[in-house]
């Protein structure tokens, strides 16, 4: 692809701007940065609006904005499951997570594993929750890089840099990530919170322009939907013996919604808000991003109607990135160069925000629930924060290595497994917010059963799909493996809790969960 100078100039200017913002952020609502809750939770001082930007930038990642329309582009209606998924997240956020905010605020919990440690008095269960969180998040960080890689290639920026005979592969990506690592190290959660405001402004402008300008060029929404293969415009019908793709669609939506808020980066974002009411207000106003996501999903169909795949100008992009190139190609084809710069910057900066928050969340988990719990129980606040900052660097380096050295396919498959794994912490974390009756040993065995069964189902699909067909009384039910393995997990935990009667410690009291 040829270099697009106007787009590149705008792209780089916006990138430099958010970098300065990221470093400056440490001065914003300044706190004692030697405390982990200052560096890793922004001092728990974010009000409703900042939490909205932070969570919006965090939950709706650049990868989502590239992969969802790519799935629509390639597979049709199935890709639209992202919409029911994000609809179902908010009743859960509204009803359940204020309880986590309250108990965490009272006891100074920074991570979900901190809460599990306090609620069930079990170091091993807390360790299981922490490790699951870290392992599920790592490939997610790597995938953010894919979003960035795609737009860098779309701009025609050469990806290898030769300095005096030394050839550096993926140089632009490397530079972007080193910069990201530096200001995350310096400013902690304040950096992505500030950058998220810029990212969201760019994103909403891009989406608004796309849903107005592109359909006008293509002859309206009617023409766009007519261009889609009628066979994939709706989900396949169910037959008497098989519930078919509709069951897969529903279970994917529900399972993904249950899993999303359990991810460490979601918990970090929620716990950084200044009040319980801010969490609930966000459940009401965050759907604005869902609407943007729904419109972005439709970009996949616009790319079909625009015929980007047959266009020789984009052949090399599709060859390198598959359908993930559909949206960048659509923008290149439909927008003037300067606006391509804005739109691509929205995607690339949209990758920085979640990558920063995810690495901070992993660092919090490692520091609180592994380092302090098992390695250095006497570590000071300052020591704890120093460890977290270094871990946040290592996590990003790991993700970078992953994406440069290994095929992207591995990151995608691991992220798919990550969803199946993280949902197995639901009984300990979410049910733990309501009841102490479940036994930590039972929860741990249930967790292991869920991880084992879920992984086996994904393995049976050669890690290509997370939909596994269950056979129930002669009826075939294609089901998201995260959901079916969670049901097994819950059953094991409930049955064993009825059997194991030894009492367990509980540092929390019933009223802690309702404090406002």
């Amino acid at each position, binding site marked *: 692809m040829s270099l697009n100078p106007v787009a590149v100039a705008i792209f780089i200017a916006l990138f430099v701007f958010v970098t300065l913002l990221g470093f400056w952020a440490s001065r914003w609502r300044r706190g004692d940065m030697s405390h982990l809750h200052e560096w890793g939770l922004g001092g728990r001082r974010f009000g409703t609006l900042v939490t909205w930007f932070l969570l919006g930038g965090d939950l709706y990642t650049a990868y989502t904005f590239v992969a969802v329309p790519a799935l629509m582009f390639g597979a049709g*209606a199935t890709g*639209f499951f992202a*919409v*029911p998924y*994000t*609809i*179902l997240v*908010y*009743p859960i956020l*509204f*009803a359940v997570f204020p309880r986590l905010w309250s108990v965490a605020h009272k006891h100074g919990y920074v991570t979900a594993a901190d809460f599990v440690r306090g609620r069930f008095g079990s170091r091993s269960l807390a360790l299981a929750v922490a490790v699951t969180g870290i392992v599920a998040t790592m490939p997610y960080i790597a995938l953010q890089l894919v979003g960035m890689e795609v737009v860098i290639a779309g701009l025609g920026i050469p990806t290898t840099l030769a300095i005096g005979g030394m050839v550096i592969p993926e140089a632009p990506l490397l530079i972007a990530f080193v910069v990201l690592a530096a200001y995350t190290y310096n400013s902690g959660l304040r950096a992505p919170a500030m950058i998220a405001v810029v990212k969201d402004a760019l994103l909403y402008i891009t989406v608004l322009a796309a849903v107005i300008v592109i359909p006008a060029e293509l002859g*309206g*929404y*009617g*023409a*766009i*939907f007519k261009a889609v293969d009628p066979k994939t*415009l*709706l*989900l396949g*019908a*169910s037959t008497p013996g098989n519930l078919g793709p*509709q*069951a897969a*669609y*529903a279970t994917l*939506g*529900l399972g993904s919604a249950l899993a999303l808020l359990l991810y460490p980066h979601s918990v970090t974002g929620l716990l950084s808000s200044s009040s319980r*009411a801010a969490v*609930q*207000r966000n*459940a*009401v*106003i965050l*759907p*604005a991003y*869902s*609407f943007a996501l*729904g*419109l972005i999903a*439709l970009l996949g169909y616009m790319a079909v109607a625009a015929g980007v795949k047959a266009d020789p100008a984009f052949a090399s992009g599709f060859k390198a990135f598959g359908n993930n190139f559909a949206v960048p190609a659509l923008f290149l084809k439909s927008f003037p160069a300067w606006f391509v710069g804005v739109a691509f910057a929205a995607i690339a900066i949209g990758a920085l925000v979640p990558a920063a928050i995810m690495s901070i969340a992993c660092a919090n988990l490692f520091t609180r629930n592994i380092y302090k719990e098992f390695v250095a129980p006497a570590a000071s606040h300052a020591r704890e924060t120093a460890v977290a900052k270094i871990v946040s660097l290592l996590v990003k380096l790991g993700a970078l290595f992953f994406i440069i050295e290994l095929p992207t396919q591995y990151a995608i498959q691991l992220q798919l497994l990550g969803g199946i794994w993280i949902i197995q912490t639901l009984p300990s974390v979410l049910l733990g917010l309501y009841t102490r009756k479940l036994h930590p040993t039972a929860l741990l065995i249930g967790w292991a059963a869920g991880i084992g069964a879920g992984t086996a189902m994904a393995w049976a699909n050669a890690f290509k799909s997370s939909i596994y067909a269950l056979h129930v009384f002669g009826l075939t039910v294609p089901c998201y493996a995260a959901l079916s393995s969670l049901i097994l997990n819950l059953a094991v935990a409930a049955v064993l809790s009825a059997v194991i009667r030894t009492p367990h410690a509980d540092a929390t009291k*019933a*009223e802690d969960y*309702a*404090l*406002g």
Partner: protein
Amino acid sequence: MDRPKKQGFRLSYLLLLLPFAAMLWVPSYNRVEPELAGIPFFYWYQLMWIVLGALILLPVFLGERE
């Protein structure tokens, strides 16, 4: 500030089940007709539920604040 809120179950929370009922009953919306401005029912119905889902939370939130 640190005053415990009223405990117990609120009836208004049942409203939160509506989005689940609507979205998980896929056969109710897996069709093309009626179209809206050229957009098949499957798509505009689910987009509409994003807005409805947020609106449903509003009375529950305000009820809790009182």
